[in-house]
């Protein structure tokens, strides 16, 4: 189904929003804000935005850790205020300040993000199983990186999801590096999507810088999953502009990442590509673009103010959240 002009504009807004939040967090790290930690996702926004913007509210996602999940969770309906407040460890954050760089909002199908790579696979099985049991057409979109594709949990989960025909869309951000490890030294083939053949499910490669291409591939897999036809694997070829951990030196093995490579990829920046498309097709005028960009700057600054002005959680929360329906608490 072709996207309307309004939907294309929404994709643009969500990408600018995700980039704005990421840039704000980059500045916060540079300013030495102690609570803030970031795996920058700049350059990869099209994957989360294209995959999540038009999902149902009751669909589940496991966000990827790039951008601390900003592109994914904002597109799924999490407010920038709550996202940022969490990053400042505030009581108004999505995890009430306990997680800082993770987001939880079960009301829009986001339970959380793990601190270990590869558990998206095993946990998504449970959400897919719940969706299948409930029978209301919910799907799971489970994100992972090229690094995550090296985990053994991938095999157990992709195998079981295929055998049980679970409604799961496995979406890989192949940004070419797992920390400092280039994918060419960690995986023997060109395309991670080739793994799909081993599990008898469709596997497709898409241009991860083209948000519309990501949307179209994910939507086809979502339609398939909602129809009870089981899981799919989508590999998005994309690129990480910044270092593995913001504020730390970046490497390829023991050498610096080539600047020419970064510059080449920036020529295909996902926001830039969509902006040009919207302008060329006359969907938005330059003035509209500038207004949207300015509105997002204001929104992100307002969210930052909200985060900074919000209170820290008190230690009494520790007993409250350890167990559900706890009579006592930790001893």
């Amino acid at each position, binding site marked *: 189904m072709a996207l309307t002009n309004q939907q294309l504009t929404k994709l643009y807004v969500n990408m600018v929003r995700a980039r704005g939040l990421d840039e704000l967090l980059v500045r916060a790290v540079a300013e030495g804000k102690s609570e803030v930690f970031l795996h920058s996702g700049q350059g990869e926004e099209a994957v989360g935005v294209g995959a999540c913007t038009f999902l149902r509210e009751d669909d589940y996602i496991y966000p990827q850790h790039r951008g601390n999940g900003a592109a994914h969770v904002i597109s799924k309906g999490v407010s920038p205020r709550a996202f940022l407040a969490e990053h400042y460890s505030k009581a108004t954050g999505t*995890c009430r300040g*306990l997680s800082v760089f993770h987001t939880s909002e079960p009301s829009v199908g986001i*339970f959380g993000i*793990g601190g270990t790579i590869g558990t998206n696979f095993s*946990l998504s099985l449970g959400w897919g199983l719940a969706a299948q049991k409930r029978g209301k057409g919910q799907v799971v979109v489970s994100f992972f990186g090229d690094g995550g594709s090296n985990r053994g949990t991938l095999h157990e989960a992709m195998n*079981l999801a295929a055998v049980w025909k679970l409604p799961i869309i496995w979406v890989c951000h192949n940004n070419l590096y797992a920390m400092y490890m280039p994918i060419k030294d960690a995986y023997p083939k060109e395309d991670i999507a080739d793994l799909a053949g081993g599990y008898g499910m469709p596997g497709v490669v898409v241009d991860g810088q083209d948000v519309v291409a990501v949307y179209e591939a994910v939507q086809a897999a979502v339609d398939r999953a909602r129809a009870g036809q089981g899981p799919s694997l989508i590999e998005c070829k994309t690129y990480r502009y910044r270092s593995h951990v913001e504020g730390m030196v970046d490497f390829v093995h023991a050498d610096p990442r080539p600047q020419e490579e970064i510059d080449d990829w920036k020529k295909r920046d996902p926001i830039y590509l969509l902006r040009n498309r919207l302008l060329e097709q006359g969907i938005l005028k330059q003035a509209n673009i500038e207004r949207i960009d300015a509105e997002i700057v204001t929104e992100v600054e307002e969210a930052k103010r909200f985060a900074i002005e919000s209170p820290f959680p008190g230690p009494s929360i520790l007993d409250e*959240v350890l*167990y559900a329906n706890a009579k006592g608490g930790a001893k």
Partner: protein
Amino acid sequence: MRQIMMMQAFNEALREEMRRDEAVFVLGEGVQGGAFLVTGGLVQEFGTDRVMDTPLSETAIAGAAVGAAMAGYRPFADLQFADFIFICGDEIFNKAAKWRFIHGGKMKLPLVFFAAIGGYGGFGSEHSQCPESIVMHTPGLKLVLPSTPYDGKGLLKTAIRDDNPVVFFSHKLLLAAMGDVPEEEYTIPFGVADVKKEGKDVTVVATSYQVHVALQVANELEGRFSVEVIDPRTLEPLDIDTIVKSVEKTGRVVIVDEDTKRCGITAEIATQIMESAFNSLRAPIQRVAAANYPIPAGFLEQYVLPQAKDIVTAIETVMR
């Protein structure tokens, strides 16, 4: 009262809870046929959607259970051998234990990880462990170790109804043990220790299969020493109050558990006793647990796992 085996008690608890709540389902390797008979016969009543045979994929089983729990279901994941918790350690110790907490309490995780513990059968180092201490050590997991069919049924029903992740360990040697179990429904709350035998000279705190060994020793020593045997039944939450009350009466303590002695639960319970009843102690606390080796299969197993004579020696030591 009628007598049934521990595994029948578990089977009844599962059947009753699956009838009571459609959100309860079972998954694991060979559960339709019934590994250890615990889940046997359930598929005939509840169908393959609620009694799900899985491939040999422990991280998938545990992860599916954790995910389904947060998404509104109440899984009972049969991991078969407790040794296998290490295969799916990330799902159990990092996800089930922590996800409610680190995400601000926004979800419930009602699920049971069920597994068989224990040696004395020559099952070898990777099918004989009692990994209690690592579970008790991890905030966010409840831990249940029943020693009788009565406790097994009542505690399993409570575990299934609990809104938190529960690790439920049943000793292999107890699965066929017979015991009184009433026909009518009952549950047993967590955090309530059971005094299995009253005595006045020495308090023996024992878990799971060791409760039976301790009771046998207590009976053999009758006339020499009056031994009180306490089964905590759940280690998280731990009913330290009942143990301390007994220690205040006897002044002497032996703690028996089949997990490795070093950093084992015997150390934790001993410390908690000393923290609140040090002045009541009339002798140093003695611990009986597995020696600090992996568990050999075959002949040498007896030199690593705790034996009845070790409990006798420990009691004689504190009574000296």
